[in-house]
């Protein structure tokens, strides 16, 4: 399964990945779009202190780079630049939420969205532990938008891949656009297992450089995008309340109890009804003994 390793010690915050993504996906500027600025419906995107440092993911921004000052605020700023995009969970919450199967985890890695199925309930947006899916609020026919992992680029059907991979240009064409654009090798595209070993190797061989955690190794049951960082992830706005349990498991028990409910619940209710019916029959018999004429009239209707 494909994955990307993001090494936050290498990112220089140049946002080449952001421009590459915009071009790859024909995304517009966020000016004028209704984007999530804390507090209000905002019609301006660029220019505010908060958003220029930490722009939100929107329908026109599949990826952003956040600028975080990880220092304690007293001394020299310690800038850490964090690329954000869909984490492409191994067991995505959005996929398990969607009532029409519009979100789908492909075996190759990308979590892809099928707008032809979507009915716009926005449950995926509520369910995503990383708050990634964005909505085209300004469109009359709005779709959910998010990073596609450049599925069209990486899911090639080339039989001679091993051979053609030796050509660097061809290999770049099969990477996500952001990875191909990154000038500092902060992004590395490859197989998830290999990238996990690579991440561990970097952490072990550079003592004191990294914190000993690979974000995404087991968060939300594991993600296809993996991060290693020079400072604790909590300082960089990474969601820390996200557990290691795959999200679909959270609703499995409740949903699994529906079929037994129908079968056993139906039987129990029928049983209760029959008990009552018997009681009624006994009462009716008593009534009939008292007043046969009235009983006959009621049955005759």
């Amino acid at each position, binding site marked *: 399964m494909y994955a990307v390793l993001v090494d936050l010690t290498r990112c220089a915050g140049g946002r080449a990945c952001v421009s590459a993504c915009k071009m790859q996906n024909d995304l517009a500027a966020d000016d004028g779009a*209704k984007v*999530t600025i*804390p*507090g209000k419906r905002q019609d301006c995107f660029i220019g505010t202190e908060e958003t220029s440092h930490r722009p*939100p*993911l929107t329908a026109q921004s599949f990826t952003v780079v956040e600028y975080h000052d990880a220092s304690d605020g007293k001394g020299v700023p310690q800038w850490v630049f964090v690329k954000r995009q869909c984490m492409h969970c191994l067991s995505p919450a959005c*996929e*398990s*939420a*969607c*009532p*029409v*199967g*519009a979100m789908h985890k492909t075996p190759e890695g990308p979590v892809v969205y099928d707008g032809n*199925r*979507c*009915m*716009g309930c*926005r*449950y995926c*947006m*509520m369910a995503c*532990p990383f*708050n990634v899916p*964005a*909505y*085209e*609020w*300004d*469109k*009359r*026919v*709005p*779709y959910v938008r998010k990073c596609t992992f450049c599925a069209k680029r990486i899911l090639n059907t080339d039989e001679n891949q091993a051979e053609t991979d030796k050509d660097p240009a061809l290999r770049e064409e099969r990477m996500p656009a952001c990875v191909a654009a990154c000038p500092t090798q902060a992004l590395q595209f490859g197989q998830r297992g290999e990238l996990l070993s690579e991440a561990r190797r970097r952490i072990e061989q550079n003592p004191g450089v990294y914190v000993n955690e690979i974000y995404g190794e087991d968060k939300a049951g594991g993600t296809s995008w993996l991060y290693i960082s020079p400072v604790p992830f909590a300082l960089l706005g990474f969601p820390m*309340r*996200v*557990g290691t349990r795959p*999200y679909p498991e*959270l*609703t*499995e*028990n*409740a*949903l*699994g109890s*529906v*079929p037994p*409910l*129908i*079968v056993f*619940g*139906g*039987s129990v*209710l*029928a049983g*209760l*009804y*029959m008990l*009552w019916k018997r*009681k009624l029959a006994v009462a009716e018999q008593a009534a009939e003994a008292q007043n046969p004429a009235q009983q006959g009239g009621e049955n005759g209707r």
Partner: protein
Amino acid sequence: MADSHFFQPPLKLLTPGTPALLILMGAGLLATVYRFALGLGSTTNLSDQFPWGIWVAFDVICGVALAAGGFTTAAVVYIFCGERYHSLVRPAILMGFIGYVFVAIGLIVDLGIPWHIYHPIIFWPKHSALFEVAWCVMLYTSVLALEFLPSVFERFGWHKLQDLMYRVTPYFVVMILSWFTFIMSHSVIWAAVAFVVLATLAVFMPRLVSRREGVPVVLIIAGILLSTAHQSSLGTLFLLMPDKLHPLWYTPMLPIMFYVSAVAVGFAMVIFESTISSRNFGLPVEEEALAGMSHILVYILGVYLLIRLADVVIRGQAATIFSGMGVLFLSEIGFGVVIPIVVLSIRKFRQHTWLRFSAALLVILGLIFNRFNVTLFAMDRPGHGMYFPSPEELLISIGLVAAIVFFYSMMVRAFPVLPAFSQESVAPAPEQHPVPQRDGAA
């Protein structure tokens, strides 16, 4: 004569309450036109931070719970020997039916691509609670329609159609429930088990249907099962948000919480609605039956209170009650559960029309508050913004409520739904009804 048990107010379109309702409905309709002409972004305060607003929280999630009276009353009357509540069952079923129809309309307004609303019928995901809710609501609305049909047949004297419905209903029920089991489990074995069990029951059921009831009992059972499934599944929706929903509300027990509170509010809605419509149409309030219902309500609220508190304590969140969010929790439980329990457990208060009514109203408001807490207030969304519905959002939600009241008042005029007299009275012929003193629509 079945008709003699029911009272139909004269069918008048223009009653004192109607203009106000029509204005509210018109405003809602206008806002709906705006919403579709301009799109969600320009007419709502929804955003990536708050993808769900008042339409989901109130029109859909509260709406489904508030329409629970249909199945709870049917269960009490038909399954749990509640013969003395019989007069309440038709209004409750009608209320449930209209409620679900408007939940669906509210959902259409909220959906980004509403013409894809039928997609859960053709695409079947495996784990989705919302998929389950979609199917249940669809099937249950048709069950409610069938449960209401006898009133229509009686109104027009279509006894042959009624007989046909009796014959067809068992097949319909076995079919929809087996099908439902199949798409929920993706398992032919479960579907076969459901089919065999239900078909076996249905073979015996039609003979056991008491014609006096007017509604086939298999249908009532189907309604209870489907309601149980989706009322709880609305809670399951939020199980996917353990990292965002505040721990006072997030619990693996959410489906059970949603179910028990929906059952409670079902009884409260019947008390609320029956009291108002009796007053409105100049009928005597069904004191005896409503007092009994409120007694049942006390026990259900008691169970609800117990599991809510036990759940918070067992999960080690007891101290959180006294934090900031605890205020929401305490007021929800205090006003919506504890006070109604105290009021309604006193026999004298239970038998007092307006104290009982007020307690029921508190239960209803408490449930609405609970659903808003879970959907919006206790939900930790990224950023530190606030959501307040736009005028269009508010107008549409208010318009939907007005429409429910309007259509309910029209339907009880058009069909035999309202009880003629309380149980103790001897039912007189229709002509001998006292002339209603007040005749309002709302």
